[in-house]
């Protein structure tokens, strides 16, 4: 079933076309990767889907509903969560609070009910705490819940950021370079982790990644960007053997990896 569809979305900044005519289709339960050299427009594509930028052309449909031009918080509320390339945790707040905050969008009580701790709020707060604790247990961060999020080691910060995105109860999870800056061991752990959560939370995952090990290991399909243009699309095998991709990208990536 098609969950998300981007139809010829284009993003121009003044004279610069960051992304041109991107057609994306995400089916329920898939893991799809977006790769391409630095500056190819991958994060811009993410920002269009999540509402940070409004595409200059084209339309994005989610569950058959046009979501082009909605605000990021509205898009998250509809079920598309994301992480960031440079980790953006709430640094001064605890691990637990970071996850709790992601539950806030589902809160029904108004601020007076919350301030005066009226019954409905008390019930909701209790539920939020339970689900957040459950989630932290599932991602293996429960014992660190009272730590300041910035005091966690890098790999765990990444994991917390994913957990926080999961707390918004998404259908689609967008991961922006989840393995960036990780050593091979951490990368392997993360790959398994992404697979696991995808399955457990019944997610559709769309990720930007440079690590070929991760991309080739878990992706069902791959899109390849170069200078904002989609130069290839297919399964890992097809991509690895695509002449255009090898020319534009894989040669460079081998040196990096």
């Amino acid at each position, binding site marked *: 079933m098609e969950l998300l569809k981007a139809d010829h979305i284009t993003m121009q900044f003044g004279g610069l076309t960051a992304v041109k005519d991107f057609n994306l289709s995400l089916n329920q339960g898939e893991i799809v990767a977006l790769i391409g050299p630095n500056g190819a427009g991958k994060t811009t594509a993410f920002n269009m889907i999540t509402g940070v930028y409004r595409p200059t052309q084209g339309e994005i449909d989610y569950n058959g509903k046009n979501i082009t031009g909605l605000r990021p918080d509205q898009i998250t509320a509809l079920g598309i969560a994301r992480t*960031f390339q440079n980790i953006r945790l709430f640094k001064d*707040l605890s691990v637990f609070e970071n996850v*709790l905050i992601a539950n*806030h*969008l589902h809160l029904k009580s108004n601020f007076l009910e*919350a*301030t005066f701790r009226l019954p409905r709020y008390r019930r909701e707060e209790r539920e939020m705490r339970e689900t957040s604790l459950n989630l932290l247990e599932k991602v293996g961060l429960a014992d660190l819940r009272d730590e300041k999020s910035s005091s966690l080691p890098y790999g765990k910060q990444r994991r917390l950021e994913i957990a*926080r995105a999961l707390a918004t109860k998404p259908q689609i999870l967008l991961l922006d370079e989840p393995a960036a800056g990780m050593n091979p061991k951490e990368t392997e752990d993360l790959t398994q982790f992404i697979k696991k959560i995808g399955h457990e939370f019944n997610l559709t995952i769309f990720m930007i990644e440079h690590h070929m090990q991760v991309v080739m290991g878990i992706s069902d399909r791959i899109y390849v960007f170069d200078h904002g243009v989609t130069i290839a699309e297919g399964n890992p095998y097809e991509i690895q053997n695509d002449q255009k991709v090898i020319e534009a990208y894989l040669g460079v990536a081998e040196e990096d990896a």
Partner: protein
Amino acid sequence: MKRNTILTLISLAILAIAIYFIDQNLDSYKVRILNLCAIYVILAVSMNLINGFTGLFSLGHAGFMAVGAYTTAILTMPQAVKLQNFFMVPIAKPLETLNLPFLPALFVGGLLAAFVAFLIGAPVLRLKGDYLAIATLGFGEIIRVIFTNTQTITNGALGLKSIPNTSNLWWTFGFAAFTVIFIAFLINSSYGRALKAIREDETAAQSMGINLFKHKMLSFMVGAFFAGIGGGLLGNLLGTIDPNMFRFFLTYNLLLMIILGGMGSITGSIISAFIITIATEVLRFLDDGMTIGSLTIPGITGLRMVVFSALLMIVVLFFTQGLMGTKEFTWNKLLNRSQKPLAKGGRS
């Protein structure tokens, strides 16, 4: 949780007993200073909600106070006093006979201040950082100029005199306790967490589904509401108000308090509201001059403010966290419980 509630209630009872004895025994000068302390607690804590907890650099607090002060004053002044006050230009008709008891008048003042915050928040809360500061600063000045010119409502530059002196220690400390408890409970609720998330990282907060504008507006309006109440208490404590009272200087004083106490700490704001208010009185000799034995040192008007400004610079340069940083007083910490509390029950 239960134990903390009991401890809070006990301390409120102790506060009430203390007020009773202070009211009986201390002279009116000291009582007045304590009243000012409590009012500044209300103002500093409410400004900290906007600036410290939500991270909105707003400098409009004096404007909200003015709205509250004028509303409360006009609503509590008897008709005869109003007629005396408005001898140049008569007061607008419906206001002449409009009268409310002190408590509802304070709430109307607070609500009007919150409404004004809503009106100006709509355009200015889209701004960030220093742009927001400039816009809100401008708002504060505009309110002052408007109040100087709406003679039929505010009596213009003449100000209002003989406002009933209804503020006393019970009102001021009562509202200070209410403000502190209300804002502490708000901060420790899911909404408070959302506000802190906005302070920490707007982009991340928004992608967590938090409606930035709605939550900023919430913080701004709640802050303005309490600023309005504080203004009302102040006007009815001093007995006279005029537009020039609500210059930027007043906001600056509050800013000094929340920076000194720690942006994002209610406890810090309470402590520094007391320190600064009392120090302003204690250091009066700097302005007035003093005599030690046979030596007379002449005072320099405004020297106190130099001291406070220097203090602010020292804090900003060397102790950016202020007294408390973002730490709060909690019963759990006081009683030294080894286990970390799940929720910080920050109360005074």
